[in-house]
């Protein structure tokens, strides 16, 4: 009996001593922290993706609390909603930022861009791009080796194996910018998110002269300026044999799309042309979303 008692007592006393030590240490090394940081952190998406430019959500929350204005701080993943909540918590003003989404500015699928050699190295766009021009002659085209897919925290990009081009799933894309950074060819751009995820953009970043660009790829922008001339909203700028559509200015009128001789300008998530009735529009958009789903399955 007595031995059991001794054991119980000694264990309890060890426990108490340890608790006291722990308590003292906790007091001694306590880091004073503004509790509001914790609240702000809770409002953030907790993806720790780094899209805001800070290494983690917590550090971003600290930055929000400590800075005077929220002008330079924006969580692309949570978007405007999250920033409004953060602003509310902190009693600060937040400027309105349009939500953005990533688009792939290359249409050089296997069909459009002849392969001129066979790459047989580490499967990484960064490795291939540092080594040489790539398995086509186009020095800026997509290398189809999944660097952007691997880096996406939100599974918002997948590689379409039939075309060799990545596809962004707009609903999942948070515009964190990880893929933009990962792409060694800089073909991914964050553009303004329009209604129904519609986009019009020049799907090429080749700066070569028209004839050479066309040799690389049948859907290259050849810098013919036709789209530039047809645009009524001054959304299109020309430079280095390349057209660029400013997503903030573009009114999605689609006139440039028809004008482009090489089909380098893409329209995405638009209903097919000449369908006037609402019903038809609906079925068309359904079809597109279905196509996306089947693509994913493949």
């Amino acid at each position, binding site marked *: 009996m007595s031995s059991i008692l001794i054991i119980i007592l000694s264990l309890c006393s060890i426990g108490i001593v340890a608790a006291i030590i722990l308590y003292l240490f906790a007091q001694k090394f306590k880091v004073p922290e503004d509790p509001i940081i914790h609240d702000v952190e809770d409002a953030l998406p907790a993806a720790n993706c780094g899209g805001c430019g800070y290494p983690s959500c917590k550090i971003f929350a600290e930055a929000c609390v400590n800075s005077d204005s929220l002008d330079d701080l924006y969580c692309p993943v949570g978007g405007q909603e999250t920033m409004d909540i953060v602003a509310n918590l902190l009693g600060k003003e937040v400027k309105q930022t349009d939500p953005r989404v990533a688009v792939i500015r290359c249409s050089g699928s296997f069909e459009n861009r002849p392969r001129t050699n066979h790459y047989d*190295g580490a499967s990484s766009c960064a490795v291939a791009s*540092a*080594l040489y021009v790539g398995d086509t*002659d186009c020095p800026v085209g997509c290398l189809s080796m999944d660097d952007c897919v691997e880096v996406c925290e939100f599974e918002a990009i997948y590689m379409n194996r039939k075309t060799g081009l990545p596809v962004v799933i707009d609903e999942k894309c948070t515009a964190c910018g990880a893929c933009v950074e990962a792409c060694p060819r800089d073909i991914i751009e964050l553009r303004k998110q329009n209604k129904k995820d519609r986009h019009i953009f020049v799907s090429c970043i080749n700066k070569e002269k028209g004839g050479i660009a066309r040799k690389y790829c049948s859907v290259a922008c050849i810098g013919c300026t036709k789209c530039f001339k047809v645009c009524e909203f001054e959304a299109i700028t020309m430079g280095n044999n390349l057209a660029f559509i400013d997503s903030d200015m573009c009114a999605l009128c689609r006139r440039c799309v028809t004008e482009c001789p090489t089909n380098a300008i893409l329209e995405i998530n638009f209903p097919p042309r000449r369908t006037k009735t609402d019903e038809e529009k609906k079925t068309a958009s359904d079809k597109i979303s279905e196509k996306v789903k089947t693509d994913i399955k493949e």
Partner: protein
Amino acid sequence: MRRNQALTTYKKGGIHPAEYKLTDKSPVQILPLPEKVTILLSQHIGVPAIPVVSKGDTVKVGQLIAQGKGFVSANIHSSVSGKVVKIDSLPDLTGYKKSAIVIEVEGDDWEENIIQSTDLLKDITLSKDEILEKIRESGIVGLGGAAFPSHVKLILPRDKKAEALIINGVECEPYLTSDHRLMLEYGEEMMVGIRILMKVLNVRKAMIGIENNKADAIYHLTDIASKFPGIEVYPLKVKYPQGSEKQLIEALTGREVPSRKLPVDVGVIVHNISTAYAVYEAVQKNKPLINRIVTVSGKSLKKPSNFVVRIGTSVRFLIEAAGGLPENTGKVISGGLMMGKALNSLDVPVIKGMSGILVIPEDETKRKPIEPCIRCSKCVTVCPMGLEPYLLMSLTQNGNFYRLEKEMVLDCLECGSCSYICPANRPLLDYIRLGKTDVKKII
């Protein structure tokens, strides 16, 4: 003399790839002139040269067509006579476009001051500064492959002094025999070149390191060297990558060049054997660097040969001269099997640093599927720099660049021994190279 001496080599790591020296018995042939040449303006490490001719100009062989800009840069001379037809961006060896001058060949009209006779000019009449200026003007770069402008290497920092000149005749890459043939056929010219380099560097001793698989070259050069005071030939045990500067210095002198230091910090300067020959031609014959010896080799080629080639000749022309591209070709490599660059097109020009063109059949070039690392530590064992390739690869994949820098990724020679030895076929060097570029960005 030194024939009976025990063979030396460097201590750490190294591999023994198959040698395949198919062309070590084929004398150097002079390749006929091509119809046009494409001369790239950045054939060297450093700033690209600036063109000094314009479209439509007529140029002579040896005429300056682009001037080196800044300290680390090199002049470029026309390798043929004819008309400049284009100054434009054209694909270089990587396929990316770089500025280049295209010249259409008309006749073979040399600059008057170039001595074209093959007589040996042994007396070195110029002063040290005059020689240096000649070397700089002639656009000589390291011909071993790195293509670092030679005059930069010859100007020592004020507080440093070189004790010895090391001449790199190792040629440890499989297939390549251009240096080997040069040593056999132009031995005396080369020795004069070495004497010139010794005069510039103000050293009394020059050591020629040659691997033991080139016994005829060792005997030949040892014989000639007796006529040239201060020059000695050292046979070396065969081991790759002995041709690397740091490894060669260790093999010959036992000194190790510390991380991120230069050879001159341990009192030596290393030049390639073909650079020594180019120096001879530049200084004694006023001939700028307009041609070089290129080994065109491969088991499937009809006529593997060593050619004297004008800079700017297209690779396709060389392969045609060696019997044409075989049907089963998988890869065409510029340089050696271990460190060379696979070409994506045959229409790229020969550059100053190109020592060989290798044609490899399809079935020998396929990489095997990547398997998981079994941590066999073979990559650590063979790394000549004492690095841990398996770790560097995974750190690169994880993007841990600070740790990469701490693990001395920048010391990597890119010799490829790790990728060569890996039983799991892991692309170690592919990623380490990427890690190096990324680390260079942050420091």
